[in-house]
């Protein structure tokens, strides 16, 4: 009973904090609205798109924007707008799953390291630093190249590059919170480690982790598109933004719109997430609070 109150109170408190953060920073609202717009486009892709993204209109190859093909067609005569809308699904899917995976694993590692401290902490964080030191694109590239490009392998590879960042973010507030009175009180009452961690520490470090999550979602989407551009994305004919740029790049001299539209899509998506995450971070960081 008592731990339920603590749990809910922590969540309610941090929920209010995040809401205040939102209201004090217009940029994060803009970011949220833009991002939700992109999510809506991805979800409604079958209804919004005028053509099948894989259908090849051989008579209209490399057609410039027109009433029939609003953003033009690619070298196979496929409708670019439809491919963009369907590509959003894949970018968001891989971005969201890899970020979530990294968030869960990384925060658990970081919270455990901070909670238990000592040699265990030292060892774990040293391992995380090693991963962090390695160029993430190169690590992702190596893993995907070895495992083969599929949605699952891409998700694992991208998540792997983001785990150390979450471990670091989760560890430092855990170190502070485990010294607080309510944790000592919980210990005195005989609560186990799992209960202290799960119900009392994790809800309290959740805001930092979630803000980090929104910033990393932008990064994972960027990495996914970069891998696709290098040729390690989800294989064709599936449409991905990075893959569209890769194939459009061959015709950049004659048909620059082939690379322009997906470039703008990636940029808008990552920028909206950065606006959102940046505003939230300013608001929950006590050092920066009130700066607006």
């Amino acid at each position, binding site marked *: 009973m008592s731990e339920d109150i603590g749990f809910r109170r922590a969540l309610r408190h941090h929920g209010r904090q995040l809401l205040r953060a939102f209201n004090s920073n217009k940029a994060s609202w803009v970011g949220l609205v833009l991002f939700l717009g992109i999510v809506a486009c991805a979800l409604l892709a079958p209804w919004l798109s005028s053509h099948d993204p894989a259908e090849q209109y051989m008579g209209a190859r490399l057609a410039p924007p027109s009433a029939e093909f609003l953003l033009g067609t690619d070298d196979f005569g496929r409708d670019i707008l439809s491919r963009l809308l369907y590509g959003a699904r894949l970018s968001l899917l891989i971005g969201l799953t890899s970020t979530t995976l990294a968030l869960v694993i990384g925060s658990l590692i970081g919270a455990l390291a901070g909670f238990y401290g000592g040699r265990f902490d030292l060892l774990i964080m040293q391992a995380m630093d090693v991963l962090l030191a*390695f160029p*993430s694109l190169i690590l992702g590239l190596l893993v995907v190249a070895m495992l*083969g490009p599929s949605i699952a392998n891409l998700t694992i590879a991208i998540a792997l590059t983001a785990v150390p960042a979450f471990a670091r973010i989760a560890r430092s507030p855990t170190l502070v919170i485990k010294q607080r009175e309510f944790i000592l009180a919980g210990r005195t009452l005989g609560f186990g480690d799992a209960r202290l961690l799960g119900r009392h520490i994790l809800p309290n470090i959740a805001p930092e982790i979630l803000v980090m999550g929104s910033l990393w979602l*932008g990064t994972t989407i*960027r990495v996914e598109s*970069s891998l696709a551009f*290098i040729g390690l994305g989800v294989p064709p004919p599936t449409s991905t933004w990075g893959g569209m740029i890769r194939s459009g790049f061959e015709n950049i001299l004659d048909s620059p719109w082939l690379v322009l539209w997906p470039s703008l899509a990636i940029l808008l998506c990552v*920028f909206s997430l*950065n606006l959102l995450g940046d505003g939230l971070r300013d608001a929950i960081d006590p050092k920066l609070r009130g*700066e607006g």
Partner: protein
Amino acid sequence: MQTYIIKRLLLAGITLLAVLTLIFFIVRIVPGDPARVVLGEQATMEAIEAMRARLGLDQPLWVQYARFLRGALSFDVGTSMVTGAPVLKVIGEVLPSTLELSAAAMVLGCILGIPLGIWSAVRRNRITDYVIRVASLLGLSFPAFVSAILLLLAFAISLRWFPVMSSGNSTTVADHLRQLALPAINLALIFAAYITRVSRSAMLEILREDYMRTAVAKGVPPLVVIWRHGVRNALIPVVTVTGLYLGILIGNSVLTEIVFNRPGLGKLIVGSLAQRDYTMLQGLMVVYTMIVVVVSLATDLAYGFIDPRIRYE
């Protein structure tokens, strides 16, 4: 300072060993037999066996591991599986080009980013600050290949100020610089976005310090206060971030080299991927690891030198 140096060296050694081990195992999780993948389906058993023997794949895993470590630590990372050329020699041929690009980008990025960040902090919550902050956030949102393509479209294809391809075959210095310009500007703009944000927040903290208020109260002109007491202190975090940024810079330089078709480590990686040249890939990873470990060691030591408090952490 001595204990600090020894501690850092030891840590760098452990890191190096750990990453090398990681690379060794990642390269070996490739599904199927690398020898068969390289030689193709039509290859005879003898050819495959010969290739396996040449790559040392017929040895037990721990022998392979020991060989790999010994090779990596003595800068002998073997020969290319595809062309047979020594990996280190191939890397050595293109490495200067990548280093030149990265160094140019870092210098340009600092020249652009540090003043912008400080200006933004000094004009906090004014229109200048908002513009700089949004611009730097936008800079952080660009995947390096997207910004590279946009620069290429604008300045090489439309305006024709710069060559479309930086093939590396330049005869004059002016030609060489023209080929370097766009790729370097591309990396520099993204780096500047990081630097702007770091110097802004460092400067904001320093502006709150008592010694800044004291200097103003003493009647020191504002520009002198900002320059002599502010900027110098704000540079310390910038040095750290430059070290941390290396990993991102390496990734971005790979993408930039591909877009501008510029010789370098990035193009080498993509070429080896396409040819499934695993020994070349492994060698490239070893070289990257060495660079990262050496640079972070150098940053740590420089940092301990600048700020004595770090030595006693």
